[in-house]
């Protein structure tokens, strides 16, 4: 049941992203997706394997639910954020967008907790938004540098 919910959630998020009119180039989406997934996986891996502040129950459907989230759901949300961020010009709208997406990512993380997919142990709640805020800032910084490299033109090799 939990796995079904996650597959549905992942499918809806992916479908929404595919159907949405995108502002990012496909080579941007690819790069940001890889980085976003790497951020989500490192966050989970370090806390689960080393610090023991996150616990994933040894139950295959729950583990597969978490796997789907870290390679699809989190990256979709984070790339969506960049897609909107790119066409947001005023600083207060950018601030609102960051707060909104930090809230969405934190909600997904805590949905994992309440559904028993990723259980927080000795966790301070403020760590969650802080991690996602840091992740989004990292992505924005990367996007700025990557776009310069990508769009400077010239032959491909």
């Amino acid at each position, binding site marked *: 049941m939990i796995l079904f919910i996650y597959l549905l959630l992942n499918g809806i998020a992916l479908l929404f992203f595919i159907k949405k009119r995108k502002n990012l*180039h*496909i*080579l941007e989406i*690819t*790069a940001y*997706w*890889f*980085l976003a*997934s*790497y951020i989500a*996986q*490192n966050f*989970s*891996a*370090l806390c*689960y*394997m*080393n610090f023991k502040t996150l616990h*994933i129950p*040894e139950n*295959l459907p729950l*583990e*597969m639910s*978490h*796997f789907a989230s*870290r*390679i699809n759901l989190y990256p979709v949300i984070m790339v969506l954020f960049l897609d909107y961020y790119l066409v947001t010009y005023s600083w207060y709208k950018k601030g609102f967008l960051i707060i909104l997406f930090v809230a969405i990512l934190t909600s997904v993380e805590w949905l994992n907790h309440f559904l028993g997919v990723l259980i927080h142990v000795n966790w301070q709640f403020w760590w969650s938004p802080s991690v996602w805020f840091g992740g989004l800032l990292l992505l924005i910084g990367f996007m700025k540098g*990557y776009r310069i*490299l*990508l*769009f400077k*033109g*010239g*032959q*491909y*090799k």
Partner: protein
Amino acid sequence: MNVKYDWNEWYFLISSVAALLSFWPIRKYFRPVLVLLIWMYNIFLVSSIDYFLIATPFKAYYFGDNPTYELSGALFHLFMYPCASLVFLYFYDKFELHGKQTVVYILGWTGFSVFYEWICVKNNALIYTGWKLLYSIPVYPAAAILLILFFHFIKNKYEDLAY
């Protein structure tokens, strides 16, 4: 975490430096965007597969001293695999391999990769807790084919953008 700086850490370090040195002479062959994308693709792929097979849902092997996420394992993700993939693509692209040549080339790299994995096991850099060397044999050609497909995809998209 319970990490000792012993031989397996040296092994990771030496392997990563060797991979970087093998990439260094060809670093300017591909455009920086393509290098970056191939680099990121590799990090994404191997970190996803390793987390999947080391920690959750499977516990089939681990790197280094114990099943934690060690810096030495991250060195492999960040340097070893991307450099090896770029060297692989360099010869593939430079000699414009097609058809049977590509098959032979992939088989050659598969043989080398399985041999290298065996050396990792012998040096206690890679500890099997359910995995077998035999299982890796189909993984390497599959990864090579995926890498070639990804390379053609990004090369075509970048050419469209550049012209």
